[in-house]
């Protein structure tokens, strides 16, 4: 692709976001097909994607987007109601667009979109009767000039609402049009037809809104719609690279942005000009379709139009404008303006008038607010945030050292009392500020879980259809924020759990009815803050997990032995689904059931220093409870010394630290174990784990009791050093990761401590056990 990679990147980011939203909106739309605003939003998103794609000459992408857009346009005009088959088609269309995006990202050529799909989508729009967009009011097209004086009179009077169909204002006389042959580069030729049709459809809509502009009640909504439409228009017109068209579209955008503030008379004048601009654009785009570039000198028109718009509430310049421009007024059809004036004299009940401006003001404020919030976010490269976080971490370290020195000084007596007090105060302030700073920087990396959750309605819908089940997904707490890296790591495990709930949890509608449950199963996905952790619940009202069934399956797969099962509680049996190589799917499906699922889910969640638990009542459903820290960049850890080295052990994995007496420790088959209350705890020597020189075992008298997925182990260390919040840093790739460390951190004293990888530690224990 020969395009500026930066442009392409922008396109991918922006349109990518739109696509994500699209998925969500479409699924919502399926359940509420009559939601007009939603249809509009979906339509606009598709339109924007199409516009940008056409600008970049991505023909294949434009075709499919166009097809989907056509179908939606029909839905928008209530030509047909979006039902399931229609939604299937639409979603397939969106999927195709997504695939094209993936291809672009991978730097591959775009695939030709499935012709059948495009045709079906277009047929959806056309087949049910073409969506004849309401024709623009013809009266506006042939707007009038001599009405201006009356309009000035009318301004002083309260203007009526009823005369909305007409528009007062003068048309600008235009010079003769000239035609020259016009051709686009070969890549773009195929798109001309689409784009012309697209531009025309947009123009029709704009014309419709221009007519509404004269109506006091609808002015601001019409203006904002024009603004949107003109924005889309600009994108489409961009494709042709014809400057006058861009200029005209720009004028229409201005109309949109200023339109809301116009008085009735001004609106009439502006409306007439806008309509003229629309007509000019139509003329040009028609010409382009026929390979001709129709052009007229537009300088005068544009200048006077801008003057007219900038004039704001002062009507005078508007009247002067035509004479300032070197042109002759040719059209003068009385009608609209006169009717406006007549209506003005007729007057309108005061009460109605009184309420309107207020509503208008409120609406304006709302718009202004949303415009302002749009400017308050900026895109920042993740790398920059990361380095900022790094620096803050470093600052905290240095602060700790300075604080320590300060404390020493405060407790010594060589400095005067007053001085020591100031140092203590400054120290305290420094502490608070750095802590706040660290928090603030962490917050910049926080993102709402919504980002993940938004994808699931679509997922569940597709799964439910595939499995022939009725499933309702309820999402709560999507606004809960977690660190960006957590979001990235959490995606796969969550999808897997949701799939499991659909596949294994929720029963078929018939089975549900037979059990006296509602036909439609419900999966609840709920997130909430729990202290420094986030809890995510996945609750289904399906058949639950039967421990006996799990146990039998586990036995079949050789995950456990008969004797092991004998000692297991129901709870432990349920937890067997997390064992490697366990899969309960009766038939392997592409939904879930490759037998790696739950094992991987658990590992991934533990990688995040989180945990997963299962509660299940057979016949009533199950609850998966995932607890994860807010961030993976900072972790609460227990620092423990093993010989000369200090290691950081994730606090979340530690249940207790004990100092076993000699009598408690014994050896079973050459492996050290200890009796901890009523249980036997296997012990791992820290010196073995970290490959340190062994020395005397009595040098490591403390056992740090760690637990993971129902298993426990005691790690023998020299002594616990203390609890600390550690900033997790990655180890260089050249360092082998076979060792039981997951990263490193910098201690208060500037030294480096390795972070113990609990999962690998347990893996080491398992390797040891059979041997």
């Amino acid at each position, binding site marked *: 692709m020969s395009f500026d990679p930066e442009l392409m990147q922008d396109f991918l980011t922006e349109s990518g976001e739109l696509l994500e939203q699209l998925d969500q909106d479409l699924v919502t739309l399926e359940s509420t097909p009559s939601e007009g605003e939603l249809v509009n939003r979906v339509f606009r998103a598709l339109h924007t994607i199409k516009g940008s794609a056409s600008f970049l000459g991505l023909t294949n992408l434009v075709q499919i987007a166009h097809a989907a857009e056509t179908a939606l346009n029909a839905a928008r005009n209530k030509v047909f109601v979006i039902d399931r088959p229609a939604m299937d088609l639409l979603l397939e269309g969106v999927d195709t667009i997504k695939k094209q995006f993936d291809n672009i990202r991978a730097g591959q050529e775009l695939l030709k979109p499935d012709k059948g799909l495009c045709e079906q989508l277009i047929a959806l729009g056309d087949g049910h009767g073409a969506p004849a967009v309401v024709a623009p009011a013809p009266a506006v097209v042939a707007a009038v000039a001599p009405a201006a004086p009356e309009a000035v009179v009318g301004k002083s009077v309260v203007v009526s609402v009823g005369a909305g169909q007409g528009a007062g204002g003068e048309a600008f006389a235009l010079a003769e049009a000239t035609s020259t042959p016009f051709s686009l580069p070969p890549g773009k030729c195929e798109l001309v037809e689409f784009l012309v049709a697209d531009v025309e459809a947009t123009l029709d809509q704009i014309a419709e809104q221009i007519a509404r502009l004269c109506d006091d009640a609808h002015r601001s909504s019409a203006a904002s719609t024009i603004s949107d439409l003109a924005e889309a228009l600009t994108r489409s017109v961009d494709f042709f690279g014809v400057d006058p068209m861009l200029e005209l579209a720009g004028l229409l955008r201005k109309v949109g942005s200023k339109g809301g503030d116009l008085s009735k008379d001004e609106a009439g004048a502006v409306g007439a000009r806008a309509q003229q601009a629309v007509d000019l654009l139509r003329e040009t785009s028609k010409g382009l379709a026929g390979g001709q570039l129709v052009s007229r000198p537009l300088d005068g028109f544009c200048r006077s139009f801008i003057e007219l718009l900038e004039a704001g509430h002062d009507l005078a310049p508007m009247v002067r404008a035509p004479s300032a421009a070197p042109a002759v007024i040719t059209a003068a059809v009385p009608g609209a303006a006169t009717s406006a004036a007549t209506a003005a004299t007729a007057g309108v009940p005061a009460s109605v008038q009184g309420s309107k401006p207020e509503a208008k003001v409120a609406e304006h404020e709302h718009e202004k607010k949303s415009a302002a919030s749009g400017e308050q976010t900026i895109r920042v490269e993740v790398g920059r945030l990361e380095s900022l976080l790094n620096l803050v971490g470093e600052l905290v370290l240095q602060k700790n050292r300075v604080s320590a020195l300060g404390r020493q000084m405060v407790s010594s007596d060589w400095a005067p009392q007053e001085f020591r007090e100031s140092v203590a105060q400054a120290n305290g302030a420094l502490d608070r500020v750095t802590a706040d700073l660290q928090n603030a920087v962490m917050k910049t990396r926080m993102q709402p879980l919504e980002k993940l959750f938004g994808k699931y309605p679509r997922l569940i819908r597709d799964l439910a259809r595939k499995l022939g089940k009725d499933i309702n997904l309820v999402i709560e707490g999507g606004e809960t924020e977690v660190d960006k890296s957590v979001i990235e790591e959490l995606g796969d495990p969550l999808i897997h759990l949701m799939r499991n709930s659909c596949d294994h949890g929720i029963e078929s509608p018939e089975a549900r009815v037979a059990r006296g449950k509602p036909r439609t199963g419900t999966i609840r996905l709920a997130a909430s803050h729990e202290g420094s952790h986030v809890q995510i619940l996945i609750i289904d009202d399906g058949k639950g997990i039967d421990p006996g069934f799990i146990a039998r399956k586990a036995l079949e797969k050789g995950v456990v032995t008969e004797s092991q099962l004998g000692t297991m509680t129901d709870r432990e049996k349920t937890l067997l689904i997390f064992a490697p190589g366990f899969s309960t799917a009766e038939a392997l499906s592409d939904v879930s059931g490759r037998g790696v699922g739950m094992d991987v889910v658990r590992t991934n969640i533990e990688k995040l220093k989180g945990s997963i638990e299962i509660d299940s009542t057979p016949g009533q459903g199950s609850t998966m409870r995932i607890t994860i820290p807010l961030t993976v960049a900072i972790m609460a850890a227990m620092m423990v010394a093993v010989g000369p080295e200090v290691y950081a052990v994730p606090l979340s994995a530690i249940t207790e630290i004990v100092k076993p007496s000699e009598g408690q420790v014994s050896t079973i088959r050459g492996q050290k174990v200890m009796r901890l209350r009523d249980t036997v705890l296997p012990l791992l020597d820290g010196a073995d784990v970290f490959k340190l020189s062994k020395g005397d075992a009595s040098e490591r008298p403390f056992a740090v009791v760690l637990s993971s997925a129902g298993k426990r182990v005691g790690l023998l260390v020299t002594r616990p050093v203390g609890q600390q919040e550690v900033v997790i840093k990655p180890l*260089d790739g*050249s360092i082998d990761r*076979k*060792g039981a*460390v997951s990263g490193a951190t910098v201690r208060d004293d*500037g*030294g*480096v401590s390795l972070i113990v990888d609990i999962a690998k530690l347990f893996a080491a224990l398992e390797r040891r056990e059979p041997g």
Partner: protein
Amino acid sequence: MSTSQQQAEVVGGKIAAGQTFSAADQLQLVTFGLGSEEFAVDILAVQEINRMMALTRVPQSPPEVEGVINLRGKIIPVVDLRKRFGLPATDKSEQSRIVVVEVHARTIGFIVDRVSEVLRISGKIVEPAPSMVCSVDADFIAGVGKLEDRLLILLDLGRLFSVEQIEAAKAA
């Protein structure tokens, strides 16, 4: 940014094995000693030179990786160059230094017996490496600089710390 500078950032200096140097090339080098031999690397690749500091050993890391250090918040591996070259290990002394370089967009430190000086030499006194010049594998040598009184072995950092080399070291 010129291409040569970019390259320097990526592969660790513009001194590469198999390259011939002409009189027009002005080389600015950091020289250091290992045992009785003197080595040099391109100054552009060198980020800083530190005194020895406490290293944290990493279990099951490649043998020549001596450990990791904290370089202003970044954890970087430190390689013992003696081990890398298969020279007999010696105790670290007051003169020992950790030279921090950027190679292949990674930051790596290596321990040398001593750092001598920063030197500017002309390319015309640099000759391609003879196959059996010293204890070091000829693959890592970009050339030999003939100074008046001594020889200077120019190291190709890109190769010395290439990903394959590290993999190979791991496998061994």
